[in-house]
């Protein structure tokens, strides 16, 4: 866990309201694992107050570069999008427990939605480097899905896409159906990141098909390091209900353990 002012190398819009931010943070680049995140201060003053968490999208261990893919949804991300090359970025990371990519032998399925794509790219790269066969299902807005498809294909990942409004039932059903088909072909393990709705739906499918499924879940965060106990989600652990910290025990959990409250 490191805290420092890093230099922004670039910050560009890549699709719709999706931006790609690159900054120099060798300590983070060296140690980050797929599924971990950084906690970023988007402004200087006292409002908005809190840092914002973003998955680590990609790292270049040699050059110390770290990339974050983010969607502008509110005041913090809007301020982040205003930052320019050369400015300083106050970053804390790498944080959290990432994906268990080592558990995969031969094949993996990724399912991502909108900015959820951000936490899967690093994982895909990691898996591909180890020769794992990776396929992916991407859903969301047209441009976002297309750019995701392009990036993933460059890594040799087989991609299927669903363009649509992620809140619509039709879209959700199509995503779940594709997921079921892909799992049906048999994969070692699946990984997901997206809306609660999508994750709950797909968790159900994975459980039925008895395929291990890891998901990166969201919760509002304050400290990001496990000190404030604000970011809990309900988890079923050895049959017992408990709360776990998304920032420290997660953000990646076994989908089976998460108690979905949609």
């Amino acid at each position, binding site marked *: 866990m490191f805290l420092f002012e890093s230099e922004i190398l670039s910050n560009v819009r890549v699709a719709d309201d999706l931006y790609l931010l690159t900054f120099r943070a060798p300590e983070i680049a060296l140690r980050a694992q797929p599924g971990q995140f950084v906690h970023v201060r988007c402004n200087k003053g006292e*409002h908005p107050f809190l*840092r914002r968490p973003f998955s680590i999208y990609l790292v270049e261990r040699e050059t110390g570069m770290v990339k974050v893919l983010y969607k502008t949804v509110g005041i913090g991300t809007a301020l982040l999008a205003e930052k320019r090359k050369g400015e300083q970025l106050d970053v804390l990371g790498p944080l959290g427990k990432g994906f268990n990519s080592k558990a995969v032998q031969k094949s993996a399925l990724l399912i991502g939605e909108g900015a959820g794509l951000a936490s899967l790219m690093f994982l895909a790269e990691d898996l591909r480097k180890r020769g794992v066969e990776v396929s992916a299902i991407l859903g969301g807005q047209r441009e976002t899905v297309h750019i995701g498809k392009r990036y993933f294909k460059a890594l040799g990942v087989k991609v299927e896409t669903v363009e649509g409004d992620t809140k619509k039932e039709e879209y959700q059903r199509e995503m779940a159906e594709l997921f079921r088909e892909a799992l049906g072909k048999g994969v070692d393990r699946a990984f997901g990141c997206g809306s609660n709705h999508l994750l709950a739906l797909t968790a159900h499918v994975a459980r039925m098909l008895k395929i291990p499924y890891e998901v990166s879940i969201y919760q509002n965060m304050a400290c990001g390091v496990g000190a404030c*106990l*604000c970011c*809990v989600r309900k988890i079923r652990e050895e049959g017992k209900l408990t709360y776990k910290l998304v920032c*420290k025990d997660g953000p990646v959990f076994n989908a089976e353990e998460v108690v979905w409250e949609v």
Partner: protein
Amino acid sequence: MPVLSVKIGRMTLKNPVMPASGTFGYGEEYSKLIDLNKLGAIVTKCVRLKPTLGNPPPRLAETPCGLIASVGLQSIGVEAFIKEKMPFLRRFNTRIIANIGGETVEEYVEIAERLNGVKGLDGLEVNVSCPNIKRGGIAFGVDPETVYKVVSQVRKAAKNLTLIVKLTPNVTNIVEIAEACEQAGAEALTLINSPLGMAVDIEKRKPKLSTVLGGLCGPAIKPIGLRCVWQVAQRVRIPIIGVGGIFTATDALEYIIAGATAVQVGTANFVKPRVMLEIIEGIEKYLEEHEINNINKLIGSLQV
């Protein structure tokens, strides 16, 4: 170099800056980011008698210049605290203060008894903002008589520890409550716990917190915290630890000038994990620039 050391009850602190309960865990997480030896004290997350799960999510919502939170006194329980957390904490060259809470007077007393004499522990901070289940969930800290009862009994139960009481600002007359604490044997007061607040998600038409209400923290409440410290400082002789919206050395100095002997930093830690060190340095610089050789000369120096 100006003297930064202050006294809170029987404890001498090397400087007046410490974390606020619940915002710093048991120091472990932040020990990777700052040197705990440099702090005046460490105040722990609320310790309860038994392990408790706390409130369901969501527990947090951001608000203008602050946040509302309702963790609900999630705790690992006093036994786990002593066994799992104290060994780590007592390694540091600083004062250790356990924040405690309960739902009945008896619970407070039992925790205090159990903590009295624990090696390395220096003080108790009694959080009286907890809901009193015998009185329908109304906080202990809103009624002078109830507060007196809790504090005087904890006083008897934990003779070896400096006794601090942390008050809620959700009262008509905080001075009256503070005076009851002083009479009951409190050696210091921490002011303030968080004002009750709320936030609404207009899309879902639901409260943003599972518990509807939560504690408002952050810079937004600084004026309220300062007001409480000043009001109480006029009327009690025991030292006051100021807390609420401290983000910079300037904020801390406002509290000290208004009458606080020490300060606690809460949610600012989330935003700037090294902020307490900045504040200590900032206080020192201010004293030097103003040629004040001892911080105790600044405490309560407000000219009204």
